[in-house]
């Protein structure tokens, strides 16, 4: 028997019992839609979180920090390896590493025209910036020819305050509270574009706690501004690590003896960080999965490694459980729909016993009858699944629309981007459709076998 003929016959048989077929199909529609919609809620949560995390840092960057190492539960398990050039070389040789740069952090005050503010300078290997996913919104990257060039985070300008206001406050309140003034006075943010091309003078350490008694040590030229979305790096400025080391030395020379003595000096233990050790090392992995693997490998190698992917995994674990629960709830309705299909098909066999008998008498093979009934059941699954997936998209659209209005605000990424309540990726739609067909097919197995086993003589003898 031709397969196409079987399908046509199956379709006609279904259409014969319109009412019942529609009701059964409706069950599959609702079952499919509830699974898809439930899963879409969980997927939307994961997706929102992933986007959020991406905003806070690149998911494929692993940071190796100096200092204590911690286990999974956050308990300290001893000091990490010191972060020196040996460590950089070791990490660079590890599998899955795309780019590495040590980072040397030094904070100080800068002055630009009449504004003044604290800046966190991070010295890195400028040649690795692009590979480490530093994206620029304006300007250019640092070249080897540059002298004291820096690239600033998007919000570095937010820390700048008007120096005249500072002076006025100093005059009225006296020196005693001078240290507080820096935090009390209101910042006067400077747009990043305004800073581009400007020189920032790094100031010496104020003498005797008088914040006004400073002198410029070195001029830093702003050659680039980082992307607005890179929030993790928004308040930092980046420069060449070698230059920063020199700047730091220069700065320390200007410090008062009292300030200098505050720095502990212990070089006996080789595992103790030396004064020239790096604060952290940035490592870029090829992708998120690799970042997670690399982060684990670094931890095993004795480093205090951390990546956004670690946190993402925790969140994913949570949402996975939630997805399973949501999917389970949806699954129950599809299971009920499956019982509906089986019931419809069994009923249909009772009704059509004689017909099955006739078909067998006039030469239908066992397989023909079985395939016919399986086709009918799968068709219910196919039609119900298709409509169900369609319905899911409608529900998903409405929920996203309504959801947004209820929350009444744009997504965390600002206007352009929306918070998602429900997300149906193509794979979910395809999987749901396949699942619905499979449910139909499986529900049809028992009825189809029953139909195929009917003895023709008994079947045609049945009276109605």
């Amino acid at each position, binding site marked *: 028997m031709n397969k196409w003929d079987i399908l046509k016959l199956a379709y006609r048989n279904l259409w014969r019992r319109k009412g019942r077929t529609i009701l059964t199909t409706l069950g599959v529609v609702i079952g499919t839609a509830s699974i898809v919609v439930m899963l879409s809620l969980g997927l939307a949560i994961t997706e929102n979180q992933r986007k959020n995390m991406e905003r806070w840092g690149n998911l494929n960057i692993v940071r190796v920090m100096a200092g204590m190492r911690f286990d999974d539960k956050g308990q300290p398990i001893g000091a990490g390896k010191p972060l020196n050039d040996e460590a950089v070389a070791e990490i660079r040789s590890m599998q899955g590493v795309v780019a590495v740069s040590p980072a040397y952090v030094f904070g100080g005050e800068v002055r630009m025209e009449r504004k003044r503010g604290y800046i966190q300078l991070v010295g890195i290997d400028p040649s690795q910036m692009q590979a480490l996913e530093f994206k620029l919104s304006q300007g250019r990257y640092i070249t080897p020819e540059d002298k004291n060039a820096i690239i600033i985070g998007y919000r570095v300008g937010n820390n700048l305050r008007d120096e005249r206001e500072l002076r006025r406050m100093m005059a009225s309140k006296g020196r005693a509270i001078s240290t507080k003034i820096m935090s009390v006075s209101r910042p006067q943010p400077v747009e990043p574009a305004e800073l581009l091309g400007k020189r920032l003078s790094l100031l010496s350490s104020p003498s005797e706690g008088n914040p006004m008694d400073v002198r410029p040590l070195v001029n830093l030229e702003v050659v680039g501004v980082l992307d607005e979305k890179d929030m993790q790096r928004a308040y930092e400025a980046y420069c060449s690590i070698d230059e920063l080391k020199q700047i730091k030395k220069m700065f320390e020379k200007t410090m008062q003896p009292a300030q200098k003595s505050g720095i502990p000096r212990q070089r006996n233990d080789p595992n103790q960080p030396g004064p020239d050790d790096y604060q952290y090392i940035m490592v870029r992995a090829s992708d998120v999965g690799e970042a997670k693997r690399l982060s684990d490998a670094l931890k095993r190698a004795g480093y205090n490694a951390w990546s956004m992917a670690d946190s993402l995994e925790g969140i994913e674990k949570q949402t996975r459980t939630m997805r399973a629960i949501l999917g389970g709830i949806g699954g129950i309705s599809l299971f009920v729909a499956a019982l509906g299909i089986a019931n419809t098909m069994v009923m249909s066999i009772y009704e059509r016993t004689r017909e099955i008998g006739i078909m067998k008498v*006039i030469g239908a093979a066992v397989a023909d009858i079985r395939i016919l009934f399986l086709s009918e059941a799968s068709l219910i699954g196919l039609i119900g699944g298709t409509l169900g997936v369609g319905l899911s998209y409608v529900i998903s659209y409405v929920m996203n629309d309504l959801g947004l209005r209820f929350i009444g605000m744009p997504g965390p990424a600002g206007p352009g981007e929306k918070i998602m309540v429900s997300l149906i990726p193509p794979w979910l739609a395809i999987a749901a459709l396949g699942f619905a067909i499979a449910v139909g097919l499986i529900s049809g197995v028992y009825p189809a076998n029953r139909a195929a086993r009917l003895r*023709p003589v008994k079947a045609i003898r049945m009276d109605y």
Partner: protein
Amino acid sequence: MENSGKPVIQTRSLTKKYRLGQEIVVAVNEVNLTIPRGKFVCIMGVSGSGKSTLLHLLAGLDRPTKGEVDFEGYNLSAMSENQMAAFRRKYMGFIFQTYNLIPALSALENVALPLLFAGVPQKERDKRARELLVQLGLGDRLKNRPSQLSGGQQQRVAIARALINHPRVVFADEPTGNLDSHTSKEVMELLTRLVYERGHTLVMVTHDPNVASYADFVFHMRDGQILNGG
């Protein structure tokens, strides 16, 4: 037709027993029967004489408790269900008292159904079914469903369906049982004419002597046994 001298069906001590509650009913008892080729053979008997069971055994629709059916040299008892189905598709046609048409299908589709199971393409199926229905005077009823046809018309559709695959043997079980005497006569005349013209063998079960009068041979059956030899 090949081996035209040989009988088309032969049975050897064909027996069918049923268990009916505590009782064992012998529906067909040691029947030795020969059906000659190209003839119209009638099996006559009262209700419960075992004639329908015998027909089912001859057609391979039921399996004997004992004995054998030799159909064109094939032992039907030795066949699997699927082999039997293929065999029926090729060599047999069936006509029933209650017509047994499929209600959802048109007259044309009902007639073409055996060809569908035989894997004949749709175009050819339709062509052959249409030709046969026209020949049976139903050319204007091709698209009608069984429920839109009279009893006589339905039985004619059933006859067309039985003949569509050029079977060696057409089995008919009380084909006029549900028809009035006028229509019965029409149907019987049509059926006998067709089987003679087309060279089929017709095996019919009936309790109606008028119908039996069309046959070349009549076997009388009572209590599962053939009374007049075989």
